[in-house]
């Protein structure tokens, strides 16, 4: 008999249970069962792995020790955004998403897991209101994959093969959708106005044709400015039968027109600002929505929780079986999507966030962000050698600083800032070489006036 190996994560590993259970199975040893794996395929070598189990306390100690090598945006003063933002995470978002039931549920039936289906329906509904869109799916992986999904929807809906994208598109999004559109679609950049950053409508018109499946806009743009021509772009796109995909920041929608208001057919975005910590970019959720049109509903690739009734009159219920046949699970070899397990927990976080702040709260949040951002722009723009904002449009909570007027490049400036405990904005010189030595700065509600002043002081000192 094998010496029992009792492990805290294996209830049956208590002494005696193995024998008792093996007896029922009819096998003498578990190796007998493993004979099912052909001899040749079985692994018999040595693994370079830690051999022994480690106690909980020791795991805690070691990992905390390792993590303590990280420096954080709580300790450092960070102006990094570019797809992952430092927003306040309400205590309730943490409380609710930490609830064991939500944290550990998975794929249970409509009735057994009714609570999380209702929560997800509520996420979809509130997000629908925020976006002014009628159909919202459970969150997909992240904001970039949401655009990827949107691109597929658009091409299938229109039959078009071209996707027009803004010249200022987020490099992350671009990299992702490059894969997604391959081999179905061709991405073509539309020029932007170098002064305002806005989409060049003339160039757009030039590139629009019946081959175009959709036009993508980002609002606010990756470079922080507000794209104000949404309605015109929608109109131009629709004229040639193309769709408008609007990728938006949900916390801007208290102030900015909602995609549904300017005629977007598909809306997407990154939901991380809705109650998720930065987590090194590891806590994200993709927002995906379409208008309530038969044309798009069945093209949604991801789970949607629908509302329905039950055998008891008056009782409402929620189910994830919504249009099951459109999903990968059913379409299989003809699928045009792959979203399975995605980001439901963060959808619940977003639901809590929206319910907690309400529309007025989100509006106020937007205002706070804009005011702080404009304060930063204002005082930074006074620093000799600095040009900001690089674009003349209105900015939401990110903006570009150009350092060409100094004798330092962004890398050097960021290094110098870091020595003062500041994380400077994202260096744009690689992704946008035509912007010269520019960096993308982000200011949110989390920045105090003195933080911004400190940035200005230090910048003044080092450039």
């Amino acid at each position, binding site marked *: 008999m094998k010496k029992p190996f009792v492990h805290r994560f294996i209830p049956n590993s208590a002494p005696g249970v193995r024998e008792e259970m093996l007896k029922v199975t009819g096998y003498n040893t578990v190796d007998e069962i493993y004979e099912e794996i052909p001899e040749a395929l079985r692994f018999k070598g040595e693994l370079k792995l830690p051999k022994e189990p480690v106690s909980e306390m020791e795991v805690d100690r070691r990992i905390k020790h390792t993590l303590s090598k990280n420096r954080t945006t709580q300790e450092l003063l960070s102006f990094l955004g570019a797809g992952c933002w430092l927003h306040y995470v309400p205590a309730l978002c943490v409380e609710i998403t930490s609830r064991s039931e939500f944290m550990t549920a998975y794929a249970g039936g409509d009735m057994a897991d009714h609570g999380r289906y209702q929560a997800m329906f509520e996420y979809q509904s509130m997000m629908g209101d925020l976006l002014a869109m009628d159909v919202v799916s459970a969150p997909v992986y992240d904001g970039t994959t949401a655009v990827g999904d949107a691109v597929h929807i658009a091409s299938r809906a229109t039959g078009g093969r071209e996707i027009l994208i803004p010249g200022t598109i987020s490099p992350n999004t671009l990299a992702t959708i490059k894969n997604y559109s391959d081999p179905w679609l061709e991405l073509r950049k539309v020029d932007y106005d170098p002064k305002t950053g806005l989409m060049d409508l003339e160039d757009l018109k030039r590139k629009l044709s019946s081959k175009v499946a959709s036009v993508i806009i980002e609002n606010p743009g990756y470079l922080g400015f507000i794209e104000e021509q949404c309605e015109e772009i929608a109109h131009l796109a629709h004229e040639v039968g193309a769709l408008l995909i609007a990728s938006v920041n949900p916390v801007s929608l208290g102030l900015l027109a909602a995609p549904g208001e300017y005629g977007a057919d598909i809306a997407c975005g990154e939901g991380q600002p809705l109650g998720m910590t*930065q987590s090194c970019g590891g806590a994200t959720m993709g927002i995906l929505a379409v208008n309530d049109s038969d044309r798009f509903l069945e093209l949604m690739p991801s789970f949607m929780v629908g509302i329905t009734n039950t055998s008891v009159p008056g009782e409402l219920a929620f189910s994830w079986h919504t249009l099951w046949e459109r999903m990968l699970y059913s379409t299989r070899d003809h699928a045009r999507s792959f979203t399975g397990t995605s980001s439901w927990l963060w959808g619940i976080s977003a639901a809590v966030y929206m319910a907690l702040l309400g529309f007025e709260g989100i509006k106020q949040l937007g205002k706070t962000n804009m005011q702080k951002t404009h304060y930063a722009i204002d005082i930074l723009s006074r620093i000799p050698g600095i040009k900001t904002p690089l674009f003349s449009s209105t900015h939401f909570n990110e903006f570009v600083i150009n350092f060409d007027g100094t004798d330092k490049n962004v890398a050097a400036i960021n290094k110098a800032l870091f020595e003062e405990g500041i994380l400077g904005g994202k260096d744009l010189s690689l992704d946008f070489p035509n912007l010269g030595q520019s960096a993308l700065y982000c200011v949110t509600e989390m920045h105090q006036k003195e933080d911004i002043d400190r940035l200005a002081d230090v910048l003044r000192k080092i450039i």
Partner: protein
Amino acid sequence: MTKINPANKKYKYQEYADIDTGYQAVRWHEPVIYDLSRKGSCNEIIPEAEEEIQVKVGDVTEKIPKKIRRKRPASLPELSESEVMRHYLRLSQQTFGYDSGVNIGLGTCTMKYSPKLNDQLAKNPSIAYVHPLQPEETFQGLLEIMYELRNWLCELSGMDEFSFQPRGGGHSVYTNACIMRAYHRANGNSHKNEVITCAVSHPCNAGCPSTAGFKVIELHPNKDTGDIGLDQLEAVVSDRTAGLFLTAPYDTGVFDSQLGEYAKLIHSFGGLVSLDQANFNGVMTRMRAGDIGSDLMHFNLHKTFSTPHGSGGPGSGAIGVKKELREYLPVPVLEFDGSQYHLNYNLPRTIGKTGVFYGVVINVLKAYAWIMSMGEQGLREASEWAVINNNYLIKKMLEVRGVEIAWPNRRKLQEARFHLQKMKEETGIGSAEVNLRIADFGVQTYFESHEPVIIPEPVTPEASEGASKEDLDRFVEAFRRISEEAYTNPEIIRTAPHRCAIHQTNIEPLLDPKKTIVTWRVYKKRGLT
């Protein structure tokens, strides 16, 4: 010792209800949050900007051009904080999580205990407040953890490199399909545009290559063996074959005995093999994808490696490739120079990205903590227990009237496909009906089968090492009682559930795009039809 409600043996259920099971879910009859809204309630979570800033910049929102200003306020619900808390607390209680009870039903999901320590560690500010674009040297701790997990997964899989960029299993298979596509193109083999999979692999093995533009050939398992068989494969493989996408073991619980031969065959045609080991749980330390000819593969950290399922994510995929394919991986790849960890973006043949940043880093941390907690010994034991538990379950389930198993001649590892064809014939009650009733017994519903449904009336539970003997007995006991009901009082089953938070859901309108409603705003406009 079966622990269904021992105290209640003598309980006269009839006094209080006509159908009892020893369980009753909470029923809050909680309205949709909009119906809890109170005009004007609000919560000051975020402050206004400081006075000085406000004075300095004024109401900058007026700078927003009119045409792009929000036109109508979103009709979000308005509740006070405690009401939001209460509402979601109640919804959580109406959710049957892993911790709530027996979750053996959910085959292919590998439901296991997610250690609470790991969840807590993932909230540590030293990870929660790290921005992905910080200089590498400011998050060496996290990179170290990622790199160590990479090393461990390389060992466990026999692969040479890992990426954590995919955020789930489907995302992983898709990313692997992109890599395969890039590889063949780079080798001038753009004509290789067919992939082969089989019907009892997870649907994403068909769906993801399809999404990546491949033509997909889907084989069916052999009626007698459950394998796909070399003959079938030989019949479809060709110079156009880009690769093979298989799940191992299959969703049916069958471990294809000819995997090695398939790989050789595919390789001989210049194709690649991508193995889906989302369900690695029964074979840890017993077989390695890399050793049996896989060029690509993936794990689901949210299955085998214990990261919590989060009600449907965030999960985390980990894709492993052989060194020949490393150059195609999404960027950045992790590197270690002996003293510092790096994120290398400089991979000329990279597919670029299939998702943002570095993947679900918090789950990487949790999986790392879990493996550390287990050690190699623990991993091996966990797999053994998954296999013993499953085989115990098989024996017990087959004692239940009307329950049979597919491919009884094959030994099953971590899961098995049962079916209720006999029960259906004899009573009219099939798998879908039983699944309506089972949650009434205080255990989670079960996974029936992926499509195509090759075995009619399928039932696919999975007993990971997290299940106890008592859990297994309880699950079987529920089945036994439902079977009894099927043969004596099937109406109870047809009208089920009776002990859940709500009653039998009418999914009919949700299968019809004309009737489907997924937001409250549309419900308010149209109502249910």
